[in-house]
């Protein structure tokens, strides 16, 4: 038996049984009260004050009241008055009547109770059937089979609401799981590709008995590139994981962070004859310095990668009311609307072999978006009419500056 099922015990006294018993008990109590009440009322109606009864009897029979006091012999040999005799007959009749009533009442009560328990059992089962469906679905679900739904039919009652809520929760879970799976698949793809390059290079070169020093040098060069790429992916995945929550809060000047990022990318920019045209005004925010550094790094890195050789990249930081803004603008290919909307998705790369050759991991702008989000800010990308991209990051600024 699987551990999942072991933890799932049947309730000792099922809800169905409890509903049936309480329904039956209430029915029985009400019926019992009715029977007792009837008994008491009938008894009261039958047993009158003896004097009044005899008076009424005498007047109904047109007998003088004194007649009731006449002595008559009893079967046992003694004497008694007519009144006493009649009262005795009446008492016996009432006694018989009440006894019959009691017997019938209790039989009726027993049958009704049995019927009510049976009907209650059926009705409770019927009402609770949707619950079993919910339980069955919940039990059959696991992370890999989240596609099942209860889809309960019938009137919109409490159980239907429960089932629908459950279904909605499954929708959310499924999309979260599938996003997670896709992310893991993408991450593993990004990590496996450089591994495959290293492995193939090693296999091919080492298996070649005629390999020259030149071959080994080239192999080492390719492997170094692949290793650097793995490092980059791992590093970026770490930053993405860290940007899930804000751990460090301190005063950070976006201008200083950006300026440092530009300095770090200067060699790469020089290699492609790119220049930076900067307008960096102080823009203080409270945030995580390391995360904001990687935001600036990835934004500048993206521009340095995609800007056409020899062009200028415009970088601006400023305060706009309560907002600290970082804006990076560069030329390049025209970006389609579809690409613009997906630019910040993890592992999204614009689908051209030219971009693939530029070696981005598809995580840079996703990091920018994640860091902006965790700081309560937003990021926006716009295409330029002349081609290229403007990325604007808006972060809630520090109130004190």
């Amino acid at each position: 038996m699987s551990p999942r099922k072991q933890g799932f015990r049947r309730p000792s006294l099922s809800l169905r049984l409890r509903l049936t018993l309480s329904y039956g008990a209430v029915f029985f109590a009400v019926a019992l009260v009715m029977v007792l009440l009837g008994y008491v009322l009938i008894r009261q109606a039958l047993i009158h004050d003896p004097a009044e009864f005899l008076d009424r009897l005498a007047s109904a029979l047109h007998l003088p009241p004194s007649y009731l006091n006449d002595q008559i012999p009893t079967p046992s040999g003694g004497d008694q008055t007519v009144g006493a005799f009649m009262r005795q007959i009446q008492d016996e009749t009432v006694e018989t009547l009440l006894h019959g009533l009691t017997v019938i009442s209790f039989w009726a009560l027993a049958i009704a109770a049995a019927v009510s328990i049976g009907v209650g059992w059926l009705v409770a089962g019927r009402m609770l059937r949707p619950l079993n469906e919910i339980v069955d679905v919940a039990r059959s679900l696991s992370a890999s089979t989240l596609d099942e739904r209860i889809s309960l039919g019938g009137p919109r009652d409490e159980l239907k609401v429960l089932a629908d809520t459950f279904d909605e929760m499954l929708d959310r879970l499924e999309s979260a799981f599938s996003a997670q799976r896709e992310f893991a698949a993408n991450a593993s793809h990004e990590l496996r590709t450089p591994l495959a390059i290293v492995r193939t290079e090693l296999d091919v070169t080492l298996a070649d008995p005629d390999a020259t020093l030149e071959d080994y040098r080239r192999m080492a060069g390719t492997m170094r590139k692949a290793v650097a790429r793995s490092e980059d992916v791992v590093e970026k995945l770490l930053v993405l994981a860290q940007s899930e929550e804000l751990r460090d809060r301190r005063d950070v000047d976006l201008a200083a962070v950006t300026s440092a990022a530009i300095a770090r990318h200067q060699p790469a920019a020089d290699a492609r004859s790119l220049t930076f045209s900067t307008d960096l005004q102080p823009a203080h925010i409270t945030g995580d310095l390391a995360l904001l550094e990687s935001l600036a790094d990835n934004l500048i890195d993206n521009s340095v990668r995609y800007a056409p050789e020899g062009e200028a990249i415009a970088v601006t930081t400023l305060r706009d009311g309560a907002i600290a803004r970082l804006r990076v603008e560069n030329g390049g290919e025209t970006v389609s609307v579809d690409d613009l909307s997906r630019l910040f998705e993890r592992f999204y790369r614009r689908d051209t072999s030219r971009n693939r050759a530029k070696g981005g991991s598809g995580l840079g702008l996703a990091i920018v978006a994640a860091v902006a989000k965790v700081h309560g800010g937003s990021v926006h990308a716009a295409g330029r009419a002349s081609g290229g991209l403007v990325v604007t990051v808006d972060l809630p600024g520090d109130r004190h500056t």
Partner: protein
Amino acid sequence: MRVLVIEDEEDLANAIARGLRKQGMAVDVAFDGLDGLHKARLNDYDVVVLDRNLPGLHGDEVCRRLVALRVPARILMLTAAGGLRDKVAGLTLGADDYLGKPFAFEELVARLLALARRASPPRPPVLQRAGLELDPASRRATRDGNELDLTKKEFGVLELLLAADGAVVSSEQLLEKVWDENADPFTNVVRVTVMTLRKKLGEPAIVETVAGVGYRI
């Protein structure tokens, strides 16, 4: 044996091509889906090594179209997405085999040879005819038990002639299968290679020239 490698990671594609060429295969490389599809339709490949995650045209789509076009080449899908679902999806699309990255190069070679054997008509693992024996996997050829020292191209030509099982193989077919796309179609390399091959095979001569058509054993 001629192979097309469609893989967008240039370092990987080049390493695979280099390794396969050392195994005596004629290898062409395409770095995106569209170029790959174009080459696969243009040339007569034995096997296409197809990456799944391709720019230009996704590997799945390339596979689907190759199958729809009834391109005779066998398809080996190569991808970093090595989950069960991906394998099933790839094979469902019409791929003949599936290999996850990273892979052992030996395994790739073995699978390619196995796929080439499944060509129609199917080939035995070791080709035999007229006292000749040729094993594509170990790259050894013998005549009457004597080891032959053949170059890659000579080996390739002999392999095709043996696989034809007595039928005539044209110079164009030899050029198509043994040389890659960089070979000049008007070259006499085939004639020269057949000549040196004959010399190495020795007497009695078994490679017959069918005038104006080609060669046969």
